[in-house]
């Protein structure tokens, strides 16, 4: 494709998704420059809300309602997305009566009143792409020593038997949600709605966490998945919150970490492509091309190698070897060694993915990442816990 000089598409997102090979391939395929800027945590959301002129594409993460309210993003016309039908087919995936990707559709369509909702229309707030679920991770060597025979449970994160060897993530939304799952599983607090904590519930939870922290329960609190790797590799954590790329990296280093399948269910997440409300003209056209490029499958195949799923599964299958597909998506034992996104071996022959196939794992999502109503209060109390 001829290069379109003077055209640069600016992409904002998390570091786990904005990988260098993806940028290089997209730029080569699309014929214009692409800038990736990794912004994790609250800074990313602030940028997206306050400075929509500073990006063209945002890989949103559980904040679509905020950026829509702030009009930082613009409606996407699905008639310009040829693979849209395949994305929409995700809505049909069920486990029993339960729609397993429900959260991707909850705030997807622009309704007639201008708000977001699940009723199908031609205009959407985002294009669902990457998704997955997180449990906690722990060192296999410790399991029999500490929790012999017990089913994996979020309660382990607050269990005194792990005292001094527990890691948590620092992000207020996710950290608080995992702590709530743990406190709930341990029977310490009963929550009305674990995805939307009340002021009293937040106070109670922070009280428990702070007390645990004073007793030396936590080994560390990590910011990025690289920090999580360090915390478990040489940092002394034996059990912790974990993201899939950290699991693949630890395994690549030969550390036998188990990605748990908590009895209470996983914490699900999805990251979706949004277009800045300020993008117009040639840049807007380029943004649509970039969206369509993602749905073409190559990027999803790269990210599959760190354990992420993609909305257009059939499209990415052609970029994965049969062995990769059956390991990552079907939960079958690997026939041979498998590479991570950079070509290093991260799965060894005979290994089987924790939790099983795509459908099995997705059906076990209990809660989805969310930005709670009283996030403001939650974030402030969470910082107090971090500082305690």
């Amino acid at each position, binding site marked *: 494709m001829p290069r379109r000089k003077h055209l640069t598409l600016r992409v904002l997102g998390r570091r786990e998704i904005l990988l260098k090979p993806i940028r290089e391939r997209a730029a080569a395929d699309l014929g214009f420059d692409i800038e990736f800027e990794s912004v994790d945590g609250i800074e990313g959301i602030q940028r997206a809300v306050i400075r929509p002129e500073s990006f063209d594409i945002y890989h949103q993460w559980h904040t679509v309602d905020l950026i829509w309210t*702030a009009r930082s993003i613009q409606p996407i016309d699905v008639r310009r997305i040829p693979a849209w039908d395949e994305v929409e087919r995700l809505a049909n995936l069920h486990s029993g009566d339960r729609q397993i990707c429900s959260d991707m559709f909850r705030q997807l369509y622009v309704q007639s009143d*201008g*708000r977001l909702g699940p009723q199908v229309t031609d205009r959407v707030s985002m294009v669902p792409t990457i998704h997955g679920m997180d449990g906690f991770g722990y060192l296999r060597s410790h399991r029999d020593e500490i929790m012999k025979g017990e089913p994996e449970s979020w309660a382990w994160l607050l269990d005194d038997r792990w005292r001094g060897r527990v890691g948590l993530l620092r992000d207020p939304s996710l950290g608080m949600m995992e702590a709530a799952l743990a406190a709930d599983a341990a029977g310490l607090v009963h929550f009305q709605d674990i995805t939307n904590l*009340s002021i009293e519930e937040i106070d109670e939870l922070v009280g428990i966490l702070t007390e645990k922290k004073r007793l030396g329960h936590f080994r560390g609190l990590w910011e990025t998945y690289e920090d999580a790797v360090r915390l478990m590799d040489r940092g002394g954590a034996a059990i912790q919150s974990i993201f899939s790329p950290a699991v693949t990296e630890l395994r690549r280093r030969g550390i036998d970490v188990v990605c748990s399948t908590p009895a209470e269910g996983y914490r699900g997440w999805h990251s979706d492509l949004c277009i800045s409300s300020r993008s117009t003209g040639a840049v807007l056209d380029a943004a649509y091309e970039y969206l369509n490029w993602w749905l073409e499958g190559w990027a999803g195949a790269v990210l599959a190698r760190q354990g992420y799923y993609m909305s257009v599964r059939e499209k990415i299958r052609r970029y994965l070897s049969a062995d990769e597909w059956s390991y990552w998506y079907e939960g079958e034992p690997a026939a041979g060694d498998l590479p991570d996104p950079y070509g290093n071996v991260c799965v060894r022959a005979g290994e089987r993915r924790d939790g099983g196939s795509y459908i099995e794992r997705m059906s076990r999502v209990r809660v989805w990442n969310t930005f709670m109503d009283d996030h*403001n*209060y939650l974030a402030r109390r969470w910082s107090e816990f971090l500082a305690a």
Partner: protein
Amino acid sequence: MEPKPYYEIVRDELRRHIEARHLPRGVVLLEGPVATLLGVSRGPVKRAFELLAEDRLIHRFNGRGYLVGPPDEKQIPKRLDLRTLGLQVSVNIQTDIQRASWQKIYGEVARSVVSCLPFGTYQISEAAICEYFRVSRTVVRDVLNRLDHDGLIEKDRWSHWTAGPLTVRDVVDHFEMRRILEPKALVFAAAKLADGELLAMQDRLDRAVADTSRLDQEHLDELEQELHEGCVLRVANRRLAAAIRQSHLPTIINRLFGTLIGLHEASDILREHRTVLENLVLKAPRAAAAALEAHLEADEVRTRAHLKVLSVFPEPDIAPYLSRVH
């Protein structure tokens, strides 16, 4: 509204009389008699004279005091007893002057407290207010008691005055109050609203709707006030009005959102207002009340969404007498 300083009140009062020619050119103005006439001390009068002289409404001459009129006009000084001129001292000035000391700073303190509510919990320092406004402890305590009475601050268990956070629960509670009280109050108040007044409001609304791109937060605030205060609070029951006024607190969220991010839903708001007004014009107060309830429901949804967005904002500048607790 923040009370004006005395010298400004005096300046405005004198300017009004000069412009209306109740104080004719050449009249000699002396601090003492003017202070007596207006019921204030001489300090503010002296300052008011200086300001009026800067504006060339009065000028110094070869005698004590000032002469009314610009300096370049030759005037023969007229020494009159001001009381003989029959000047009508406006009611405003009387009430403004009589306003208790605490009221002079209440507006500003309340405004800075309210603006920080959505961002967290803040402690208010009595000593810092004293220092900042150069007022006594007694005055500050009056201010704080009043803020407490208005539901803006409270004492924590260590007896510190704190404000905030304004949470989603608060928003829900306040809007529930509003939905219960405002439609009823509007029904009571409807009879007091004159046709001409309503039509004029409708006209202002229509002009705003015609070009929402030019609408700013201040203008939208005025239109909101016309309905929620100008109409609803016309209700005779003072207790009802006071309860409604207190439940207006979450409007700060929309004001901050509009100022920091933009007015994205102004046309929805104005359309909802229009429906209320149309029914008032048609002498259908119950239909107007129902429309008002629908407007408040929609506004609650908007307010909650706005609060969520504000939660990612960095902390705003806060007054020096406030400090963040968490």
